[in-house]
């Protein structure tokens, strides 16, 4: 039976992990390779490296990182952050990454999804979508927006680019469907409303998305405990749950989360 996946996410800047790390026994907690291996040992199903370096030296350090990770890590990993062109995608994949995630570049130039998935296969093209709810009045239905009744009120979901800094004014559900039509192999969905809150994922968004698209959905943003991941993978219908801080700060190990999921009937690889 296909297992649901648990994916730790590492934010990397200039080749170093930037978020605080609660692992014990690491010689260098900021070394992405050492942290990746620790997650591998804990039973992570995949890893995501998000490069947040904002400078010209980004590309070289990123390729170097991908090559080093690929030498020691024998589970799939995805690289995202600042990938703009098909040539960027090619260099990351040929350095040893299994997938790339694209966000801003895909919104600004959707044809990149089509071209990249044709060249490299849709299985390695993850379209990452950052969203934020826009609440509307009872009698209001903005044109071109999919308005849903949620527990917190009527809303639609706007797409954000540039690391969540800039709203696009584009309906996220429709964008997700279009990205899949263009060749996205998976969707990585992050909610700016829930990110960092530790109050759980945006389950209503995930449920609606998994009803609409046929590719796997990776839920991101908001995990504070294993129950949140359980909700995303069951009620939300997500295929994978990504989390950063609950793992980095050592609150839970990947194995603890997976044991919890297994006890609640979710198929996981233990």
């Amino acid at each position: 039976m296909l297992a649901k996946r648990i994916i730790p996410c590492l934010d990397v800047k200039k080749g170093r992990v930037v978020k605080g790390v609660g692992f014990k026994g690491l010689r260098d907690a900021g070394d992405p390779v050492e942290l990746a291996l620790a997650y591998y040992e804990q039973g992570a199903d995949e890893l995501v490296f998000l490069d947040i370096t904002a400078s010209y030296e980004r590309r070289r350090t990123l390729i170097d990182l991908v090559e080093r990770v690929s030498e020691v890590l024998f589970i799939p990993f995805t690289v995202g952050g600042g990938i703009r062109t098909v040539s960027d995608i090619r260099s990351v994949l040929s350095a040893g990454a299994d997938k790339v995630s694209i966000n801003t570049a895909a919104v600004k130039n959707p044809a990149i999804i089509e071209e990249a998935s044709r060249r490299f296969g849709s299985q390695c093209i993850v379209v990452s979508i950052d969203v934020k709810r826009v609440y509307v009045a009872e009698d209001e239905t903005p044109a071109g927006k999919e308005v849903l009744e949620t527990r917190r009120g009527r809303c639609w979901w706007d797409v954000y680019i540039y690391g969540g800094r800039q709203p696009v004014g584009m309906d996220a559900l429709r964008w997700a469907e279009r990205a899949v039509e263009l060749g996205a192999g998976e969707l990585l969905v992050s909610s700016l409303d829930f990110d960092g809150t530790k109050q759980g994922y945006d389950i209503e968004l995930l449920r609606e998305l998994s009803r609409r698209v046929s590719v796997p959905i990776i839920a991101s943003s908001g995990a504070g405990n294993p129950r949140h991941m359980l909700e995303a993978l069951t009620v939300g219908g997500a295929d994978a749950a990504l989390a950063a801080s609950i793992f980095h700060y050592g609150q839970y190990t990947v194995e603890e989360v997976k044991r919890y999921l297994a006890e609640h009937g979710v198929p996981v690889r233990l």
Partner: protein
Amino acid sequence: MVRIAIVDYGVGNLKSIRNGLRKVGAEAFVTGSVEGLKDVDAVVLPGVGAFGEAIRNLADMSGVLRSLVDAGRPLLGICLGLQLLFTASTEGGFHRGLGFFRGLIVKLPSRVKIPHIGWNTLEILNPGCVLLEDIPDGSYVYFVHSYYAKVEEGVNVDAETVYGVRFPSVVSKEPVFATQFHPERSGKVGLRVLENFVNYVRR
């Protein structure tokens, strides 16, 4: 040390399979030419991309692959590499394959999400298979594919996996072996599969 050539037919990540084979003690290298296949102990046909393009890019090498196998050199197909070993595929039209195994490559049923991405279980039918030594039944391995092999007679199905349909995840006809999953991405279980292959090459 055994020398294993990884066939480069133009697309995808070949580093991870090379690193995996090195990790389990083989001298592995990537080659895209017929000359590169001289004096090798075994060949790995990796797998990323579309069938039609892959088989076109392999056209020059198919004869050499056949002679290597006829001479008893082990061949391991991975993912698309498994599919290329069959008679033909229906991916994007109709394409003839390398024909080491009899059978047709067809698309997974539309009632499940496609591609089949992620960790799924092996149901081991032939525990005596060289590749499966010390691999427990029910082990999870990593898959990424949209098509699968409908096997005809003369091919051993050593393990199966269920995803919308029951399909062969390990097939063999010595000295040719193939996995629909990615051993180089399947953690410790996958490394053991690669080690089993390397041990077979070394025998």
